[in-house]
């Protein structure tokens, strides 16, 4: 068991067009690692072979060039079941970068809610387009 009280996390699977993590994406991930508001708690590459076999490339295997580790909060949180769920979305012969990104900024809130016995009854991610459109409509 972990002593850390994590905030909520987002699970992203990003398809990699040529099956490789390109420099722009790698740099974006490196930038995320330096961001205190979030924590990249898991990062891997899921590959689906032409024959449908599924494999997951771990960071330790150098799947994301320039990113060898995630620091002390990095954990293999995504399970084999998640890997398979992602693989189902992939065409044979393609790959996806999977990132589990924790909202570190919410840790204090999670702890406070727990202590207060308060519950999150609704949590909804509002797409940026909707937020911006709503803001625009305010004039």
């Amino acid at each position, binding site marked *: 068991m972990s002593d850390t009280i994590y905030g909520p*996390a987002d*699970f992203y699977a990003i398809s990699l067009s040529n099956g490789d993590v390109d420099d722009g994406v790698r740099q974006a991930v490196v930038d995320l690692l330096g961001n205190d508001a979030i924590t990249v708690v898991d990062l*891997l590459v899921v590959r689906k072979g032409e024959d449908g076999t599924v*494999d*997951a*490339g*771990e960071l330790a*295997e150098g799947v994301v060039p320039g990113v060898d580790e995630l620091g002390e909060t990095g*954990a*293999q*949180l*995504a*399970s*084999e*079941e*998640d*890997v*398979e*769920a992602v693989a*189902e979305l992939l065409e044979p012969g393609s790959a996806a970068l999977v990132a*589990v990104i924790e909202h570190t900024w919410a840790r204090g809130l999670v702890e406070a809610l727990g202590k207060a016995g308060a519950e*999150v*009854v*609704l*949590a*909804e*991610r509002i797409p940026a387009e909707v937020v911006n459109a709503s803001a625009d409509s305010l004039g």
Partner: protein
Amino acid sequence: MIGRARIGRGGLIGTAARTAVIAGTATATTGAVARHQQRKMYDQQAAYEQQAAPQPVYAEPVQAAPAPAQVEAAPAGGGDDLYAQLQQLGQLHAQGILSDEEFAQAKAKILG
């Protein structure tokens, strides 16, 4: 190679979707994930059935046309599966994971 720590645990996606359903807080977003998971489950089931079904067909002397045989083979053992699928579908509809429209579409698809 899949890391050892990843094996033998429930998935984040599936667990989150199930939790949302149980807690009754399945929102549009988590609902969409759950819907997707369920659809994938059905697709998987269908794929398994298709994979499993042709084997006895190949065992028979008539090997000339495996492709149409595969199509015919699926419904042959599918009576119970069909019922189970409809039942699952009904549950998903009742839980609000499927909308009325999606339920009708999926039902029509299953009944072919």
